[in-house]
């Protein structure tokens, strides 16, 4: 089973937007970021503007012009943030943005870091940090960074990786052990399911054939995956990288909702018997204590009073 077909299957199982399927399939190797071929005209215009610095398209106001270095910072930030946003939206469903957009995230991070740590003063004595991060009410750069970072940390994306850093523009990253193992087990399940069903399944086709067969043949790998997932959950104190959470969720939904593989016992007779038994206890207890109980009695003590005693 080739890796390629695995990926295809993975997408076919998980994807909800069939329109996007092809785009993602082609982009799933994802070595090239979306530099240069942004589809929307607006973004293109914006990109042209930042490229040219004090652009032809916008109004050039001389007393608001900023230093060339700062301009470079802005440009780096703008490009990387745009890339990250695009990447994450594209990988919103099936959710795979941590692993797909790590490069862009790291780029945004280093671009922001460069601004935030800038301490070279220009002629007026202010740094790019001052100019870009604290000159107005909205603070676009800061807000953009906090949006990016918030998304990253809300998805617990860092737990997908054991390390990642920016080395002169190229991102050196290493998947965490748990995520790596998960990927292998996940593909095992995916290939098993596609083997049995012949690959022609979609997640919302409830009448798919071969369901029962999937349940028996793939049970082992499914259980292994579940077990490993539980292990990751335990290890990360429930802060599991959202890519894995989503993959696991949809695998489970496929397993029980689509193939109806989860068998549950609904034999509740022993439970009902126990319930009846335990429910009788308080009745017996209270009636018993009322009949046989020792009743608390109180004796009135006569008080010494002026009127009643004299």
């Amino acid at each position, binding site marked *: 089973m080739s890796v390629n077909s695995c990926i295809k299957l993975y997408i076919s199982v998980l994807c909800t937007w069939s329109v996007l399927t092809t785009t993602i399939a082609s982009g799933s190797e994802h070595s090239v970021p979306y530099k240069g071929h942004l589809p929307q005209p607006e973004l293109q215009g914006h990109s042209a503007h930042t490229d040219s610095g004090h652009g032809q398209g916008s109004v050039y106001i001389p007393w608001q012009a900023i230093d060339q270095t700062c301009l470079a910072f802005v440009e780096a930030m703008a490009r990387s943030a745009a890339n990250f946003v695009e990447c994450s939206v594209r990988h919103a469903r099936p959710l795979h943005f941590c692993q797909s957009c790590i490069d862009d995230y790291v780029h945004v991070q280093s671009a922001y870091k460069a601004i935030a740590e800038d301490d070279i003063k220009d002629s007026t004595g202010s740094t790019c940090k001052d100019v870009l991060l604290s000159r107005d009410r909205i603070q676009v750069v800061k807000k953009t960074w906090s949006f990016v970072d918030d998304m990253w940390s809300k998805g617990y994306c860092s737990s997908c990786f054991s390390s990642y850093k920016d080395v002169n523009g190229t991102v050196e990253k290493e998947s965490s052990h748990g995520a790596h193992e998960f990927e292998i087990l996940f593909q095992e399940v995916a290939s098993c399911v596609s083997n049995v069903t012949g690959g022609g399944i979609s997640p919302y086709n409830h009448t798919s054939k071969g369901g029962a067969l999937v349940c028996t043949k793939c049970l082992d790998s499914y259980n292994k995956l579940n077990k490993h997932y539980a292990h990751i959950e335990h290890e990360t104190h429930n802060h599991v990288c959202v890519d894995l959470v989503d993959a696991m969720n949809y695998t489970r939904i496929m397993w029980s909702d689509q193939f109806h593989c989860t068998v549950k016992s609904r034999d509740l007779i022993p*439970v009902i018997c126990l319930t009846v038994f*335990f429910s009788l206890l308080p009745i017996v207890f209270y009636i018993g204590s009322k009949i046989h109980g020792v009743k608390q009695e*109180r*004796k*009135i003590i006569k008080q*010494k009073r002026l*009127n009643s005693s004299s």
Partner: protein
Amino acid sequence: MEGAGNENLDERSALLTVENSSDYTGGITARYTLNSERRYTPPPPVGSDTQPEEEQHCDTQLLDVKFKSLNYDTCENTLFRDEESAKSYKEVLRLQMSRWLVMFLIGVFTGLIACGIDVSIKYASALKYSTIKHYMDECIKTNCNSIPLLLWIAWNTSGVLIAAILVVYVEPVAMGSGIPQIKCYLNGVKIPRVVRLWTLVCKAVGVIGSVVGGLAVGKEGPMIHSGAVVAAGISQGRSTAFNLDFKIFEYFRTDTEKRDFVSGGAAAGVSAAFGAPIGGVLFSLEEGASFWNQALTWRILFTSMISTFTLNVVLSYAKGEPWNLSNPGLINFGEFSNLSYDGFEIPIFILIGAMGGLFGALFNHINYKLSVFRKQYLSTLKWPNVLEAVIVASMSAVAAFILIFTISNCRSLGEDENENPLQLYCEDGQYNSMATLWFQTPEESVKSLFHNHPGTYKPVTLLLFFTVYFLLASWTYGLSVPSGLFIPCLLTGAAWGRLVGILLSLIFPDQPWADPGKYALIGAAAQLGGVVRMTISLTAILVEATGDITFGLPIMIVLMVAKWTGDLFNEGLYDIHIRLMSVPILQWEPPPITSNILASDVMSHPVNTLRTIERVGRVVDMLKNEPHDGFPVVEDDSENDGDHFGSFRGLILRSQLIVLLKMKIFCEAESEQTVRNRFSKLKLKHFREAYPRFPSIEHIHISAHERDCLIDLTPYMNPSPYCVKDSASLPRIFRLFRGLGLRHIIVINNHCQVVGIVTRKDLARFRVWHHRGRMGLEELQISQSVRSTR
């Protein structure tokens, strides 16, 4: 009429035999109002033929003879004056410093105990729920569902068994939340054994047992009691339980100082439980307000602050984030994202408050009926109490199990954070949100109801959960286990509040104000207010626990409306339990229109008096034969004509007499002058040493020869105790008593001769009753518990 002496013994026992009637179900309550002349008429004597046995008797209409008062008033005898004059200002400063030190220590230890309880409960319940979850997950596949049920029952019963055994066999006063007991203590009633070390141990270990045992209880109420015990222990500088005396803080070994510290300890407990220092101070203020001064309030705020700070620091280490000081209390309600509200919501809040009052009144009524049953049929033997607690524990498990098995409220995993999501009959990748309500400690469930996504719980889930938990909680409170009332009330309230919120969001779709979490908070406040009916302190506690001052107004509105609505039906649950305990508690205000009741109607008469120079034999006999704790000291009682008992000179307490007899401060009869000057070496210190457990008179051996000796009481008695004329009215005496924390007031006539004595029970027996919008005055009887079979 013979005023004092051996004859009293016969009179008293005769009275007792007359009244020793086993059938007390009628005729004892004498509910009466003022007659047409607006003059007080005493109720006909009990047991006489004229008394019709028609009024149904109720256990709340008795006072128990065993409760004594604390002595808040300083006894300014000669010894005291000597000690005062020997004091320097340096010593006064030292005393003030040590008061602050004691308050600091109280705060620290209360905080530490709170942490210990919190951490143990956390780990024990984590173990419990993960074990049961393991079997539940397995058994749903392999058809062995009775195993997790039995396991759950086993966990519950074993936890509760520990708690119940500790309470029933070691220290019965550790049962319940302890707030009623502390309330009585701060009111000035000495509840036996309430601030002992063993009580603290039973309380702390027991509350872990009962919370882990899955009962519908919280750990917050017991914290208040624990804080009070810590205060009483530390301020005395010794432990009688371990027979340890550190010889420090000896000056604080009096009722006055101890009670001040106990109010600080209770505040520290509230503050540790809810992260509410101001709420803690206000709690002490509300419950013991008559004895407050600014300096004490300031010290109590200090101890509250220290306690919440200590808890904060230790919990930050326990949670692995050292010095992240954002865990101020055992429970905090978490951060609300959306607590904004509009003016048009206020009528809704008022309605919710009224609902809270109704539910609270219902809760109190159910619990009251149960408590009466428990008091009548279960209180004489010990083991049925343990058995009852265990039965409730197993029923809690069974009810939860049945609910989570029958209701499938499936939600996707990872939507909200759960420690132990249970799948049950949901699909893979989903969890049952009904199960999560039961499958965590009640504190965590409260937070889930406040913060989880609007769609997490279906209305039917909430409705069933509310019904079952409401019944369980009202069944549970009053069992012989340490149990807090706050959390179960908050949880039931949060359940129906959230239900209201969901219904509102169905009626007004897409309105951001109809947030189920916000209404869960409002509902929780309403239910709690409807049950406990506390006023300002509860408001402060809830506002502080919410951590959002802007939401203070809705909480205040809801609490007020809940209290007003609930008060139409019955009293707050703590007050109900105080009545059931038959404690002579003094309310805030004297009963209305009682100014026609005069001291001569209120007081005890005849009085047992002692002479200034008294024969030891007579003192011993009086102590043996009379249960009283204070004896007026008189002179010239020879011309006693039955109306008075001699000229009033002072008041001496039983405890003082015991110490005098024990130290043999008497000598053979010579002239009175020699007696008077012989024992100048006795210091106030000797009285403090014996405090608080003075030996009983039976343990003091007085030989026949010594009985003829003389004892001079003048240097030891209180020469100027508070006294009133026999024409003083009940409200006047009441205010004097309540305001100064007195134990005895002597009633004198125009010639300064003793005619009677008023104690707390004489006043507490006059009580106002409210029922269905009517009110009146009733007189309670003083009683003593005896056991008899049915």
